[in-house]
């Protein structure tokens, strides 16, 4: 109480501050519990204000009936927790002391701020914990989603390779079945050509003989037969028909051979292949489309470049890119295919002058099921398969550059040798 004596000039201010302190509450009460005087916070706890000093008798525990019964040797009649306020609604539990002097009670109550600070800290760190757990959860959800996507992708890839397998088996079967008849048709055609040649030579000799030695009557009759059967035309056309048939059969043979090469069921393992000629066989499959759209297509198939690869799969990868290029260009558009060798890597470059890929689509083109083609005309799997084949299977990479309405360049890059 030294301060008090030494600084009486502060009394008023200290009084005023304590009147307005938010953490301490005090008030003077009659033994009936009616307020005589109170600071702001006490009024707040009691739900009243300093001028009205209403409501009365709002100490819940102990209440005034109890307080007046307390006996004590000093002025301090009670020390402990005081519950104050409106019991059914808002109430507070405070550390308190109650003093009695003459017939008046001083109730002095304060919140346990140390406890509050502690709780506040706990709450703060709990809040952080919840927040961090939430973040953790989001992260795990993401990982799950990624795993799910990967699984879906793998599933689709499996379904697709299953389909390709079935298709490949069918192609191989058909190719085998066609091979036999084609072989004897080819043989027979060569024989037929020989026979026809003999036949024509013989016929010409016969005609010469008739011209020289036969009677007029016989000559006339030969002439008639000759005209009736259009022998001149037939002999001329026969040679042509046979040579056309030979060409046709050769083409059938090549198609069958390409189909067999494409399906390559026998080549599920790494093989060293001649890249250009393999690509050439893949081209057979898209030739019709290229012709139909009048596309100016360029590829130098004479280049010699040997690479280690899974030939069937690599064909598939190139084919997918080519099919997209064909769909991307307008009628009469341009597609260039090149192969290059650089630092022990092989690049297969497909360049088109088609519609291009938008920036926002660029990040999605390798996603399974992403397609810009009309419903039903693409599965959205092509490039994702290409991606798998190049990246995963061949440990290579794909580079894409595209500009809207200018065109797109796809580079499939694989190591020349697979370790």
């Amino acid at each position: 109480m030294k301060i008090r004596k030494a600084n009486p000039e502060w009394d008023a201010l200290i009084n005023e501050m304590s009147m307005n302190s938010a953490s301490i509450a005090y008030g003077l009460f009659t033994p009936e519990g009616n307020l005589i005087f109170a600071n702001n916070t006490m009024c707040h706890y009691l739900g009243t204000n300093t001028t009205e000093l209403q409501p009365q008798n709002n100490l819940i525990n102990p209440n005034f009936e109890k307080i007046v019964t307390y006996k004590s040797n000093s002025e301090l009649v009670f020390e402990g927790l005081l519950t104050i306020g409106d019991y059914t609604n808002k109430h507070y539990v405070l550390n308190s002391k109650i003093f009695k002097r003459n017939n008046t009670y001083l109730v002095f109550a304060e919140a346990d701020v140390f406890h509050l600070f502690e709780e506040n800290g706990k709450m703060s760190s709990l809040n952080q914990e919840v927040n961090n757990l939430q973040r953790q959860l989001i992260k795990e959800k993401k990982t799950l989603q990624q795993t799910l996507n990967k699984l879906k992708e793998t599933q689709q890839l499996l379904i697709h390779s299953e389909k390709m397998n079935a298709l490949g088996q069918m192609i191989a079967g058909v190719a085998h079945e066609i091979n036999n008849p084609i072989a004897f048709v080819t043989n027979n055609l060569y024989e037929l050509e020989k026979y026809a040649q003999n036949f024509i030579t013989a016929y010409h000799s016969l005609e010469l003989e008739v011209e020289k030695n036969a009677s007029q009557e016989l000559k006339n009759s030969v002439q008639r037969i000759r005209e009736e059967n259009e022998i001149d035309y037939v002999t001329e056309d026969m040679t042509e028909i046979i040579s056309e048939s030979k060409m046709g059969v050769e083409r059938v043979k090549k198609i069958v051979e390409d189909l067999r090469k494409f399906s390559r069921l026998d080549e599920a393992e790494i093989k060293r292949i001649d890249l250009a000629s393999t690509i050439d066989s893949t081209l057979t499959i898209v030739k019709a489309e290229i012709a139909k759209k009048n596309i100016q297509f360029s590829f130098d198939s004479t280049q010699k470049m040997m690479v280690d690869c899974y030939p069937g799969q690599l064909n598939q990868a190139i084919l997918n890119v080519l099919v997209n290029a064909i769909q991307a260009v307008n009628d009469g558009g341009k597609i260039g295919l090149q192969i290059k060798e650089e630092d022990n890597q092989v690049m297969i470059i497909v360049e088109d002058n088609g519609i291009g890929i938008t920036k926002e689509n660029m990040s999605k083109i390798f996603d399974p099921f992403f397609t810009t083609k009309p419903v039903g005309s693409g599965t959205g799997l092509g490039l994702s398969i290409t991606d798998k084949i190049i990246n995963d299977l061949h440990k290579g990479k794909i580079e894409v550059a595209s500009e809207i309405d200018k065109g797109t360049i796809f580079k499939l890059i694989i190591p020349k040798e697979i370790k």
Partner: protein
Amino acid sequence: MCATIAKNYLVENPSIKDLYEEVFKEALYEVGRLWEANKITVATEHLATAITEGILNELYGELDIPETKHQHKVVLACASNEAHQVGVKMVADVFEMNGWESYFLGTGIPMSELVKFIQQTEPAVVAISLSIFFNYRNLVEMIAVLKSEFPNLTIIVGGQGFLHQKEGSFEKLENIKYISNLYELDTYLKSI
């Protein structure tokens, strides 16, 4: 509501770094000033931080994270006794946007646990945040332990604690990179 505003912001300016630096950080710094000047209550400050962390979590779910095959790992934590974790959470996001796998440990991780965790995850980088200068000594001690346990570990530090240098005596940290904000961090990550 706030999350919607944040998302709309990103529609107009898709830079998360701008949103974090110019909106969230600025707002929380203002909250700090108001709190210091007793213009807002502790409860309001808590609410503001909780809202921010809530939005951060929501945005975290939608972060555009590049898929890279060989992900580097980073472990992020606050200096001992540090209770401020919003900034370093943003730092974690920037790492992730650069294709890193982040392990955000936040505040209050005991040193022994941190060491164990680093042994398990084998991160390339450990990032430590300091918001209050009086925790600087703790940071120095932490770094000393980490350096002796993991001599090859890259340690980076950041946080506004370093901006209050004049308030305390700061000894120099050898071989430790200090990064002051998210832009600088982004440049750093793209350079290594």
